[in-house]
């Protein structure tokens, strides 16, 4: 009944201290259904093999049988913590294929929702991470603010997690009345809350001891593994797609990429905390700069891009969210490949956990902020 047949791990027989531990798929801290098979010596991790695919839904195959417009709701279900960023990458790709110009108001709205989603995702990361390291209270505090954002998003698009709001060419509907009042209220107090989060968990001496110098990810290794997002910036690489590609209207906004130097677990946490503050700055600017006008470009009723291929990417909360579309000129895409950040981010885990303790493995896993449906698709 031993189910390790697929896993190339063997506890050595002469060294009696080694054993295999199966962590997951149902484990409190593997964030969804990830299975990690560990080779341990005492509590020290000697080897680690991730086993994936428990929630594979074959999205890429589904896409080949759907019209272009029908694909958007499925994208919400990859990284469900920041659905709008996935939608954005996809609609941007189709717009690029069809050369559609998106109205300015819609572009600003896209930035607003992408940043709100980024904060949402980081807040959930923070609360889940608190659980991982054994602090149970941060969850409730972070969810309080997350709920505020979700209410905002719900007022705009009607969905709480699966938003389905972006459309090819702009937006389904304009912003609801009173949206900016809610946003203003949120902006006014959120910075204090981030201070609270830091005081409660991130700057706590117990946590700092656990996180500093643990799971160090070198810049070169990170780039070689295709790690992106806050994880990469914590290692000191100044790579932020919002700056590099300057898609949407990010070129007109003033913000900075949140860099850290060491690339350890603590730096990854700090980078995310700083990113929340930066997102807030972006939101503030968008609120001042957003023009009035249409939110939807003129788009043909039946979306039929010309044959060709395109790859667009946006900076999601976890890293580079990319969509690669091959079109053959029909109503349905010929092939869509989703490039999701967690896929590459998780692949680095073997590199940075070997030699640490089980407790560190949990801390490192949490700090990478992976989300399994995104990997399995």
């Amino acid at each position: 009944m031993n189910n390790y047949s697929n896993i190339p791990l063997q506890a050595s027989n002469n060294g009696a201290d080694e054993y295999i531990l199966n962590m997951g798929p149902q484990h409190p801290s593997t964030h969804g259904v990830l299975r990690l098979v560990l080779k341990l010596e005492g509590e020290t991790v000697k080897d680690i093999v991730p086993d994936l695919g428990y929630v594979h839904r074959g999205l890429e195959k589904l896409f080949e049988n759907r019209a272009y417009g029908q694909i958007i709701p499925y994208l919400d279900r990859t990284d469900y913590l920041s659905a709008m960023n996935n939608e954005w990458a996809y609609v941007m790709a189709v717009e690029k294929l069809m050369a559609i110009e998106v109205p300015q108001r819609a572009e600003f709205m896209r930035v607003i929702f992408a940043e709100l989603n980024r904060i949402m995702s980081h807040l959930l990361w923070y609360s889940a991470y608190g659980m991982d390291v054994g602090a149970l209270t941060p969850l409730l505090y972070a969810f309080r603010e997350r709920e505020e954002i979700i209410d905002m998003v719900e007022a705009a698009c009607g969905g709480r997690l699966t938003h389905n709001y972006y459309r090819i060419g702009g937006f389904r509907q304009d912003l609801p009345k009173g949206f900016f009042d809610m946003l203003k209220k949120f902006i006014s107090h959120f910075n204090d809350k981030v201070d609270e989060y830091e005081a409660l968990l991130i700057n706590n001496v117990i946590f700092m001891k656990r996180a500093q110098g643990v799971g160090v990810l070198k810049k070169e290794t990170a780039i070689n593994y295709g790690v992106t997002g806050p994880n990469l910036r914590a290692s000191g690489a100044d790579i932020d797609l919002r700056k590099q590609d300057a898609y949407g209207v990010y070129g007109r906004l003033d913000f900075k990429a949140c860099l850290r130097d060491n690339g350890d677990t603590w730096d990854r946490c700090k980078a995310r905390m700083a990113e929340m503050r930066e997102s807030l700055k972006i939101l503030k600017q968008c609120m001042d700069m957003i023009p009035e006008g249409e939110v939807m470009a003129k788009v043909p009723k039946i979306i039929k891009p010309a044959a060709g291929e395109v790859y667009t990417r946006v900076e999601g909360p976890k890293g580079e969210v990319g969509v690669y579309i091959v079109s053959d000129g029909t109503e349905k895409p010929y092939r869509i490949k989703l490039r999701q950040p967690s896929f590459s981010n998780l692949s680095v885990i073997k590199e940075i956990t070997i030699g640490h303790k089980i407790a560190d493995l949990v801390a490192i896993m949490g700090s990478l902020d992976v989300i399994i449906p995104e990997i399995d698709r």
Partner: protein
Amino acid sequence: MDFKKLLWDLFYDTGKPLSQFYAWAHNLWMQTGLPGFILDVFFQLVIAVVIAVFIALNAIWIIYYERKFAALLQIRKGPNRVGPFGLFQTVADTVKMLLKEDINPDKSDILTFWAAPFIIFAASFGVFLVIPFGNGLIAGDVNIGMLYVLAISGLAVIGILSAGFGSNSKYSLIGGLRSAAQVISYEIPMVLTVLAVVMLAGSLKMSDIVAAQTGNPLKWYFIPQIVGLVLFLIAGNAEINRGPFDLPEAESELVSGFITEYSGMKFAMFFLAEYTNLFLTSALAATLFLGGWQGPFLPPVVWFMLKTYFIVTILMWARWTFPRIRVDHLMAFSWKILLPIALLNLLITAFLIKVI
């Protein structure tokens, strides 16, 4: 008989009416000509039942209290569905536990697996014998009381180890071993802090330690031993595997540590023992540092409970605030920080006693 005086004695000097009642019963018994030890055994059984009932009721209350207190810190409401203010939530949970299937994992070591909850429960049960709840309200006022407490409470680690070993699960085993390491290394700073108090009181007997602190709050030992109190709380919290020191259970790492494989009533016993231990540690802290049952106006039992629950609240506050310590930091913390400070505290105390 003066009814008013009896009432006064019952509340404020509980030992006197109890010993009067015992002498009266003993006299009566001796007239029958039967050997006296039968009566003593009977009385011991009565005491055991009383303590068992107290443990059960107290644990039910303390679980409810913890859930409400956690809710307070976490800006939510906590249990509020079963009964008024959710007071019967724990009762409902207990009934649920009793009705659940008691699972024995395949290939588990039945003897150790079954013995574990009883050992742990017995350990916390035994300590209750020497806790002075009130003036004279103490089941067995032995003259090595404090030593007895340390010896018996250390037994719990055997239960945890046997739970970890008997479950035949790797998670449980890691949890059990963690617990053994943790309890042994925190025993030492705890003993050293207790020793400082014992030196001040000049006795190991619990009633003497309480009496030495007198009714004046300024003479309670938390003033000369403030460092000792903090050390005792940290070490005590670590010994009962709670708060930031819940490594043997460590939900996010070891699923549930040594109780992973337990279910039904056996699980409930672990749960009961955990909260009983929490109460015990707080009661000891109250006895050693906060003057035990002594205090003005209110009956001694009320004072004792108030002080104990004050300590309980502090421990809960810490539990719901801090993240978990890593296992090697835990050891380092004990040996590198707690032990030197405890030794220093002991030395200074000894020096001051000599000088003053």
